[in-house]
């Protein structure tokens, strides 16, 4: 049971890293990133592939963050100077393209078979102790990310980001170039997703392109909406609720013998879809947010 709780806790923290990045992009700066899972996938594959070639994990984690951040640059250059919905469409296309490449470039990624036997993070400690160590390391990473976001928010840079979100024309009038700041935020969020991907790969030790479908992006959107857009605490609470739902749906399936896993996947998709609609209609401020806040 302890092992199970630690495994679930690890998943919560990985989603939390994704949520903190997306919250900074959308909640603070107003960037509509519909391709978050692509940066997650790039981080996971970059770190896993290098680790399989014998690189030390400390290096592969840094590479994962760098690859994801660099991948964000051309997208940012193309879409961030335009209307906000262009970024949404471009990132959505990017995430499907990345997934397709992971699936098709078999020579590098082994395609749909996925990458097995990825070195486990803290693998030298052995089984349960390694899992606990990963959990603690993730806890530190999430705390650092939350702290960095907090510093960023309260700094002049953070004020500028909120100004961009609320009135971009005014920021331009002050002689600032919003696109530059937007690209920096976009890269920072992508780097966090890349690190989350590295943790994911070296925790599960097995990744396939199927794990990086667009639904994952909208799980993260769902968790920041649940918690109330723009607050780190909200993002963490939302992530907890989301994973509780995902895990809970597994138990429900065990209780209902007639329901196959395929149908359960459909039901999860239906719940997320319906929740997105209902939250937009009735509680755009999230469960804990204040109306108009």
């Amino acid at each position, binding site marked *: 049971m302890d092992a199970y709780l630690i495994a679930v806790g690890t998943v919560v923290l990985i989603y939390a890293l994704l949520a903190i990045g997306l919250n900074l992009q959308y909640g603070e700066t107003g960037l*509509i990133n519909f391709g978050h899972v692509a940066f997650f996938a790039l981080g996971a594959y970059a770190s896993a592939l290098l680790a399989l070639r014998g690189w030390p994990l400390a290096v592969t984690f840094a590479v994962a963050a760098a690859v994801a951040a660099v991948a964000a640059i051309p997208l940012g250059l193309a879409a961030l100077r335009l209307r906000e919905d262009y970024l949404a469409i*471009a990132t959505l296309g990017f995430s499907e393209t990345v997934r397709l490449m992971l699936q*098709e470039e078999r020579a590098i990624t082994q395609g749909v078979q996925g990458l097995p036997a990825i070195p486990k993070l803290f693998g030298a400690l052995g089984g349960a102790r390694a899992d606990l160590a990963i959990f603690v390391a993730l806890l530190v990473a999430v705390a650092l990310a939350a702290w960095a976001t907090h510093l960023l928010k309260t700094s002049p840079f953070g004020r500028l980001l909120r100004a961009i979100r609320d009135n971009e024309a005014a920021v331009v009038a002050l002689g600032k170039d919003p696109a530059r700041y937007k690209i920096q935020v976009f890269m920072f969020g992508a780097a966090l997703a890349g690190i989350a991907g590295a943790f994911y790969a070296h925790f599960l030790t097995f990744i396939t392109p199927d794990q990086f479908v667009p639904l994952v992006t909208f799980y993260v*959107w769902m968790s920041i909406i649940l918690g109330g857009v723009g607050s780190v605490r909200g993002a963490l609470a939302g992530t907890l609720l989301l994973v509780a739902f995902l895990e809970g749906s597994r138990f429900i399936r065990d209780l209902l013998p007639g329901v196959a896993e395929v149908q359960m996947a459909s039901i999860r998709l*239906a719940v*997320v*879809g319906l929740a997105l609609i209902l939250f937009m209609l009735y509680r755009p401020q999230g469960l804990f947010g204040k109306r108009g806040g």
Partner: protein
Amino acid sequence: MTLVEVANLVINGLVEGAVIALPALALTLVMAIARFPNAATGDVMTLGAYVAVGVQGALAGAVGGQLFALGIATVVTALACALVSLIAYQWIFRRLGRAAMVASLLASIGLGFLIRSLITLAVGTDQRTFSLPLVRAWNFGGVRLLPNDVVIAAVALVVLALVFAWLQYGRSGRLLRAVADNPDLARLSGIRSQRLMWLLWALAGALAAIGGVLLGVKSVVMPELGWEFLLPAFAAMILGGIGSPHGAVIGALLMGVGQELSVPFVGPTYKIAVAFAVLFVVLMIRPAGLFGRPELVR
């Protein structure tokens, strides 16, 4: 590549482009008037394909001829999806009209998920096919033309012609263009927009549905059918210039031909990636697209 191979690819691309033009037109009209990219369009296409497979199956034996049954199924499907689209507007997008664009966009993603999951819950994830007469391709010295492809392209072109004639000469079509062009001016001129919005959403649903049926006829019907064509349709809309109906059609034809011509180089599975590449290049060098107005872009 020989000239004959190129000709075959171009023909196939034009057929596919004519089909993508239908959802691209729906996207660009909704974008011009309701002002958000409707990500549920792809899954409405899927819904259309499944409804039409079901209706054609139910009609089998009752009416003569597979194509005739398919024709009836297409009309029924267009009406059904127009209704679904109207309900979605009444329930969701009308109420989000005054909220930020992102609310409608996220809700449309949610609606797409909901439609797709309800389809798979209702009929499972197995692939379906339309029953079609088996016919041999016409062969003009190596240039092949499938009779079914000719029917598909003809249906798409007739539907497009009807919509364009309505936009150009129909009374409400012209009002719709006026609202797309300048909503405030349209309102000041006394255009009552509520009825127009219903027309718009019904039209968008019907267009997506017919596009889905034609895609299903061309390949197979599966739960990801429409989702996989959402990105090419988005790319076609942006290539043509957002809000420009004829731009969407020309963009879709170019996308279709471009996707097919890329197949010998990158293989058939990279179609979505080609759509993304087109999208990316257009955003970099000419975000207003071929026929769009630059002031709508920023």
